[in-house]
């Protein structure tokens, strides 16, 4: 694959780091809440940290711990979490072209395959910056997610009020929208976005949590990806100069 040349690599990188820091800070309240949820479910601090390092997928962790807290067994908790983390397979397909390297390296960095790292990674215009964005977002979220989990499990009493009182729950959709925004450059991608959102909303009450996001992926058939002659704009990631963070 030919790579678009990027003569402003440093500028691009500092913008990527700003995105990564912003998205990492956004998960902190939820990490605190997860630590508190572990406490409430009777898990030890070590188990809470085990979830945040080894499972490392916010919604899957919440689902599994909620099941345990409700008295469910390990099989039910594993199934609930697995259904939610299944979407990281789709993220893996999206990120694979930018994550070339030795097999041990791919095996290692795959642990960072979450919504936020994929969002920062795929928002970049070159393979090198996609890889950098994935790693910056993934490592940033990993560190703050685990720090937040520890504080939540050891110090905080009720993070639920903290999240809603300060509007932290709105920072997650706002972050995803900011990363989606530069991609909505042509009619086809806008239609795909609207259809994908509609599929997710309609199926959310019907399917187990996490599955609606996988179902939404079906919206890509609108662009007829099996043909090689579809619109050029969907074939070229939008320029990084379109990213809001690069505006003066």
């Amino acid at each position: 694959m030919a790579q678009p040349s990027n003569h402003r690599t440093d500028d691009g990188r500092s913008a990527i780091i700003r995105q990564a820091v912003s998205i990492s800070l956004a998960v902190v309240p939820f990490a605190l809440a997860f630590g508190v949820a572990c406490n409430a479910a009777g898990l030890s601090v070590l188990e809470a940290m085990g979830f945040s390092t080894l499972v490392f997928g916010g919604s899957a962790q919440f689902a599994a711990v909620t099941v345990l807290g409700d008295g469910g067994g390990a099989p039910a908790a594993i199934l609930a979490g697995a259904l939610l983390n299944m979407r990281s397979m789709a993220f893996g397909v999206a990120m694979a072209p930018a994550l070339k390297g030795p097999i041990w390296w791919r095996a290692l960095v795959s642990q960072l395959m979450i919504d936020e790292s994929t969002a920062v990674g795929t928002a970049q215009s070159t393979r090198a910056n996609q890889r950098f964005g994935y790693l910056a977002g993934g490592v940033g979220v990993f560190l703050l997610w685990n720090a937040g989990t520890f504080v939540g499990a050891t110090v905080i009493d009720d993070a639920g009020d903290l999240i809603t009182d300060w509007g932290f729950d709105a920072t997650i959709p706002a972050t995803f929208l900011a990363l989606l925004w530069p991609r909505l450059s042509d009619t086809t991608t806008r239609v795909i976005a609207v259809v994908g959102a509609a599929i997710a909303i309609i199926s959310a009450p019907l399917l187990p949590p996490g599955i609606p996001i996988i179902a939404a992926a079906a919206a890509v058939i609108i662009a007829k990806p099996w043909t090689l002659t579809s619109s050029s704009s969907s074939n070229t990631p939008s320029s990084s100069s379109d990213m809001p963070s690069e505006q003066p």
Partner: protein
Amino acid sequence: MSTGLTTLLVLGAVSWVFKSAGPLSLGGDRELPPLIERLALLLPVPLLAAMVATSTVISDRAFAIDARLVGLAVAAVALWRKAPFVVVVILAAVATALTRLAA
């Protein structure tokens, strides 16, 4: 082994299999099939849109309109006005918090 430890170890392993399936099977040095290339470019659009949608109007698997929608609308306006990333996120939180305060 405690239920919590069993859950986190098995779920961690299953999650890693999901996460690494793409990079391990597709991320080698060989060229990717054109269909995979195109899917890789297209998939983030519906995935991100679905995440925006479910994190805004879904609560406990049910449709729920609340102050988050105000935050998202303010974020959309800020993006349209080309506000920096961090400003977009902060405005969304402030608008949501103020809406809850007023309600």
